[in-house]
């Protein structure tokens, strides 16, 4: 049988899209994820495509239940994002998005670390064009920073792979784990940068909101989920991940509350959702891993839906700051409803997709004795409802009337959002379909009285807090501003320090040159002083004093002749 690795259709289509225009290109772009999905379904579990570099056997395609689930997910995400971007007439963006989706598929089906590394770098290289596609100064510099951090991640991965190859003699991509070796930590950090671990998270909140309305939808789906997949394969049950994940779930919600750019709010909330997945991987039981993977699946769909609804707002109004929006429900009711479905899903309302996956991670946390982590996750669940569930729809579509009377976005955007919304509801109402695809067999029922009741209590009283704070005018207003984050170190401190250093070096150089010039001047002055009229060398001397000098000299010779 003729076997095609899942990334190949996307790469071939990207090459073809360069030459096609208009409808043929649109048809091609829609056909690729559909054909790819059928191809993947036929391939199923298994492996093929061995090649060798030096002494290492490499494997282009290896599918098990874990990678297959991510494979299906990426095809669905690509289809939704392609439909959403169908109105574009931008070859660069469309080609880059196909290559980007293909690279993500290449990475999750890589059977060895070197193949993973190649697609890891391709992910960075192709996605940065989606940031630059905005063609603004901000997008350009944000893209450069994004690219630099991802190249750093790739270099760490390559370094880790070299050490790993030396230690094991094989490059098979399986469980690595942290231990008394350098490669474990290097690869962990490489995955961590792509997964937006704390202190390395700013590439995400920096670059994603600067991309185009359509580019952000692609970006939010692939890069971080490839990192989650890689962590789930190489570091399941690493306890450190539980604490990293809890931190990731917690701190971004504070930033999200005071952030004005609504797509940046979503970027912070993306880190918050990644936190739940990372905790699940860290706990490492089959329930926890299943929960992490299921949540990754749902997150791509509902976060995509939220990014799409905010992209639609940006597309039709040209604005995305909460301080400039409001009252859009009046003329954009369909977008409003679709956005609320996404908001309900991320907030984990019963019957929406977030509910059936987030709870698995929470249950696993409490079953394995992580009480404090469970409390933090519970707080993060309330917080995510607060900033993503309420703040996003409220400040965009309700709140004060901004006077904007924008039309609904183009039909293709509405169709893409509707597909995502339908998936959110389908998974929420019939979770068994998703559960049957998960890596481990399990018996888990999300819908019982306790769970539904407690979740509703938590969410409704979070909403009550929002209402109360708003009515008491305690809620922080949306303000046009920038909030300092870790990025301050490399966007402000380092450039300023470099500038200060260069300026100081110039000053020192100037002073040294000045001093040297002054010294030379003084020397010339001193020498010429002796030759000027009245100078020692310009005087006319008496013959007598000359004779006296010669006598003195002869006297000295005489003296020397006696003594030596």
């Amino acid at each position, binding site marked *: 049988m003729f076997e095609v690795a899942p990334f190949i259709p996307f790469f071939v289509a990207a090459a073809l899209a360069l030459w096609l225009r208009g409808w043929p290109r649109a048809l091609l772009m829609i056909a690729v994820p559909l054909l790819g999905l059928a191809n993947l379904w036929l391939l199923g579990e298994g492996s093929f495509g061995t090649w060798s570099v030096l002494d290492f056997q490499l494997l282009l395609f290896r599918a098990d239940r874990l990678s297959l689930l991510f494979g299906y997910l990426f095809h669905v995400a690509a289809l939704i994002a392609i439909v959403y971007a169908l109105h*574009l007439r*931008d070859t660069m*963006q469309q080609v880059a998005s196909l290559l980007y989706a293909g690279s993500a598929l290449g990475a999750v089906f890589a059977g060895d670390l070197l193949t993973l590394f190649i697609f890891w770098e391709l992910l960075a290289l192709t996605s940065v064009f989606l940031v630059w*596609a*905005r*063609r*603004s*100064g*901000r*997008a*350009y*510099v944000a893209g450069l920073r994004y690219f630099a951090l991802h190249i750093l991640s790739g270099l760490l991965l390559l370094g880790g792979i070299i050490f790993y190859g030396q230690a094991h003699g094989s490059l098979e991509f399986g469980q690595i784990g942290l231990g008394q070796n350098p490669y474990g930590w290097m690869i962990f950090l490489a995955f961590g940068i792509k997964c937006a671990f704390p202190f390395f998270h700013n590439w995400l909140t920096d670059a994603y909101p600067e991309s*185009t*309305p359509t580019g952000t939808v692609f970006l939010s789906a692939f890069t971080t989920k490839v990192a989650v997949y890689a962590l789930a394969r190489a570091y399941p049950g690493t306890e450190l991940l539980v604490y990293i994940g809890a931190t990731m779930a917690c701190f971004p919600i*504070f*930033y999200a*509350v*005071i952030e004005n750019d609504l797509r940046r709010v979503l970027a912070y909330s993306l880190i918050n959702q990644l936190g739940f997945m990372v905790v699940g991987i860290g706990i490492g039981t089959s329930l926890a891993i299943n929960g992490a993977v299921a949540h990754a699946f749902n997150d791509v769909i509902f976060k995509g839906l939220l990014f799409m609804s905010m992209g639609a707002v*940006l*597309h039709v109004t*040209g604005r995305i700051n909460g301080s400039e929006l409001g009252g859009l*429900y*009046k003329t954009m009711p369909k977008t409003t409803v679709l956005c609320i479905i996404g908001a309900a899903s991320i907030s984990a309302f019963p019957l929406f997709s977030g509910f059936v996956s987030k709870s698995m991670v929470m249950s696993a946390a*409490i079953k394995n004795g992580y*009480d404090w982590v469970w409390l933090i996750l*519970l*707080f993060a669940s*309330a*917080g995510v409802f*607060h900033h993503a569930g309420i703040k996003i729809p409220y400040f965009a579509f*309700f709140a004060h009337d901004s006077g904007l009377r924008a039309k609904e976005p183009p039909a293709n955007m509405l169709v893409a959002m509707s597909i995502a919304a339908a998936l959110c509801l389908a998974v929420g109402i019939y979770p068994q379909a998703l559960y049957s695809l998960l890596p481990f067999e399990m018996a888990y029922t999300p819908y019982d*009285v*306790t769970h539904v*009741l*407690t*979740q*509703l*209590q*938590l969410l*409704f*009283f*979070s909403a*009550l*807090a*929002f*209402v*109360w*704070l708003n009515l008491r005018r*305690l*809620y*922080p207003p949306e*303000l*046009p*501003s*920038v*909030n*300092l984050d870790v990025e301050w170190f490399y*966007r*402000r401190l380092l*450039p300023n320090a470099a500038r200060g250093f260069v300026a100081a070096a110039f000053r020192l150089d100037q002073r040294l040159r000045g001093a040297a010039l002054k010294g030379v001047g003084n020397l010339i002055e001193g020498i010429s002083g002796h030759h000027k009229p009245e100078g020692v060398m310009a005087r006319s001397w008496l013959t007598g004093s000359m004779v006296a000098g010669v006598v003195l000299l002869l006297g000295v010779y005489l003296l020397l002749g006696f003594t030596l």
Partner: protein
Amino acid sequence: MSGEKQYFFDRPDNIRLVLRIFYGICALLVAADFVVHRHTEFRWEGLPAFYPLYGFVGCVILVIVAKWMRSFLMRPEDYYDRLELRNNEARGGHDDV
């Protein structure tokens, strides 16, 4: 705005109605805590109204802390741009091409 269509939330009565329904649901949810027997796994979970209190207090603390964070984290909107962008024209960009 005179002459423009009146929308649902333009009428204060409608807002009040929505809020009343919302308060009603909240009250029912707390009441349900005393009627329904919940199975619990965590020692504080069994406390009556644990989840409503945790959600409410958690969110109030979240907002107050975030507001306090603004006092030392907030900078003007062009804080980084002044350093990173040479001219203002580069700032806009195309939102769609």
